[in-house]
């Protein structure tokens, strides 16, 4: 019975196109697919290109300077008459900036995110969220100038007992970088918290949890993977930030120093300050730029891998 009625209905559908062959005629679909795949491949190609362009001069550099000397030396003076290639001073400079920046950006950024996501009324959020996003787009050179001409003198005026021995301060530069990445950390982690399903929030409130408890014990852990992603993004920006440190941290001392208040150079500031028109290709100084760049690349890559592992471990999967 069912069989015969099905046969009848198929017969009735004769004006339609045949099923076979329909796939081969969809060449337009294929063009689009190829185009999209090429676009996706483009960023991979660019990354590969960057790595290759770093590798050649880096290999060249390590042909002249032993890796151990580079990594353990405590004097960084590649352009001096009596050159020295110990990278530690500028690695420490970068670390001081990153740690200081995170010390500012993590508490301020996460507190703003919790406020915006859990406490603020929609009216407040409508004003503050776009303002934060605008702040993200401020040119870093402006923040560098702000740090040098405003923050550093202000710090000396109100805290005169601290050892401000030069007009530059790596620590102040770090604070400025921190301010620079606050909007990024706040905005990304707020998105993560807002995307926690409303049902979890309601479930916690229904158990008599206060707003603080709901935020800290339910929303925060549920959003932790997004929050870690926000901090990693912020850290990457802090490591890579060049302009602020170039302006506000000074040219630096060739010797290893941990002085937060004095001038110091970061890896990026070294590259940015050295890679100018009057550097000649083929010299050791030219190669140092790439060696430092490769080290920077390795550091951020390692950090990203560790962060991805962390996210996977601590993630609280909902649904």
């Amino acid at each position: 019975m069912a069989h015969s009625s099905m046969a009848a209905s198929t017969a009735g559908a004769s004006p339609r196109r045949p099923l076979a062959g329909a796939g081969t005629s969809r060449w337009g679909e294929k063009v689009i697919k190829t185009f999209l795949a090429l676009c996706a491949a483009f960023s991979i190609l660019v990354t590969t290109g960057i790595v290759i362009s770093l590798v050649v001069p880096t290999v060249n550099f390590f042909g002249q300077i032993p890796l151990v000397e580079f990594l353990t030396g405590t004097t960084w003076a590649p352009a001096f008459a009596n050159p020295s290639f110990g990278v530690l001073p500028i690695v420490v400079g970068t670390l001081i900036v990153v740690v200081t920046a995170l010390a500012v950006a993590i508490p301020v950024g996460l507190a703003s995110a919790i406020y915006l996501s859990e406490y603020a009324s929609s009216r407040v959020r409508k004003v503050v969220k776009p303002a934060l996003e605008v702040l993200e787009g401020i040119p870093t050179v402006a923040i560098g100038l702000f740090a040098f001409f405003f923050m550093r003198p202000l710090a000396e005026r109100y805290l005169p007992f601290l050892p401000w021995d030069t007009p530059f301060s790596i620590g102040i530069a770090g604070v400025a970088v921190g301010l620079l990445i606050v909007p990024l950390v706040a905005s990304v982690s707020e998105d993560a918290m807002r995307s926690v399903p409303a049902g979890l929030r309601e479930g916690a409130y229904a158990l008599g949890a206060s707003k603080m408890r709901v935020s800290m014990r339910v929303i925060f852990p549920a959003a932790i993977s997004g929050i870690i992603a926000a901090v990693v993004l912020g850290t990457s920006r802090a490591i890579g930030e060049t302009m602020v440190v170039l302006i506000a941290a000074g040219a630096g001392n060739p010797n290893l120093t941990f002085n937060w208040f004095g001038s110091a150079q970061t890896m990026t500031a070294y590259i940015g300050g050295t890679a100018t028109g009057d550097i000649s290709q083929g010299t050791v100084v030219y190669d140092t730029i790439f060696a430092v760049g490769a080290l920077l690349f390795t550091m951020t890559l390692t950090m990203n891998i560790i962060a991805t592992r962390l996210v996977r471990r601590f993630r609280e999967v909902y649904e």
Partner: protein
Amino acid sequence: MPDNSGHETTGTAPGTTGTAPGTAPGGVGTASPDEVPVFELGDVSVSYNGNPALAGVTMDIGAKEITAFIGPSGCGKSTLLRSLNRMNDLIPGARVRGELLYKGTDLYGASVDAVQVRKRIGMVFQKPNPFPKSIYDNVAFGPRTVGMKGSMDEIVEKALRGAALWEEVSDRLRESAYSLSGGQQQRLCIARAIAVEPDVILMDEPCSALDPISTVRVEDLMAELKNHYSIVIVTHNMHQAARVADRTAFFSVQVDDTGRRIGQLIEADETGTIFTKPTDKRTEDYISGRVG
């Protein structure tokens, strides 16, 4: 009065206004005589951003029994349920008017803390919403919040036994709550709610996301729970109300002159009465499947 909650309470005494159009004489329910009602509602109205969702509800809800709210979509039954533990506070623009007494205390009184209210009046939601934590931590969340004394292991076990889930999960308490089936997750949510030993459990269509077998388990559990708790359940399923509820309140939607749809209580009575000889024609139409 400082407007910190977005709610307004008028001191209307129950039953004095009678503004609810079409409320049948039998619509005002009273709890069984041997028990003091756990909730006394007097002309309760709820609005969202000035749009009334529910108006003029006057009824009592009895202790240690199951009260079901039934009615078509948009009749305000969930809205009313959520005003019983001030969950509506979380929705911007929600406003509850009228008198809503919980054991004689005005729930929306100026000095009443919504957080304290919710510690006594728990809630189970339509969709199971366990936290993305272990089974143990889900149940322990409430007791830790409230600061309950005693062994947490015992509290958790007691709650899980109370929700008829202990046998199934006792050997995997540290596993994620999401490893459970939907029905188990909903019973976990019930365990989570009873772990803080509330007086009342509000259930908002607790079985609508569950399969029939899980539904039966939850209904059996409710029959068990009413020995210790007062339960209010919103359900879309009339048969469920008929199966589990001691008393049933029927809500419907009234369209006013301006075309706004406002929910109202039509009548509340013993479940048997509602289903066999309802006072109002609209109840009868709904029950017999002619409407809704």
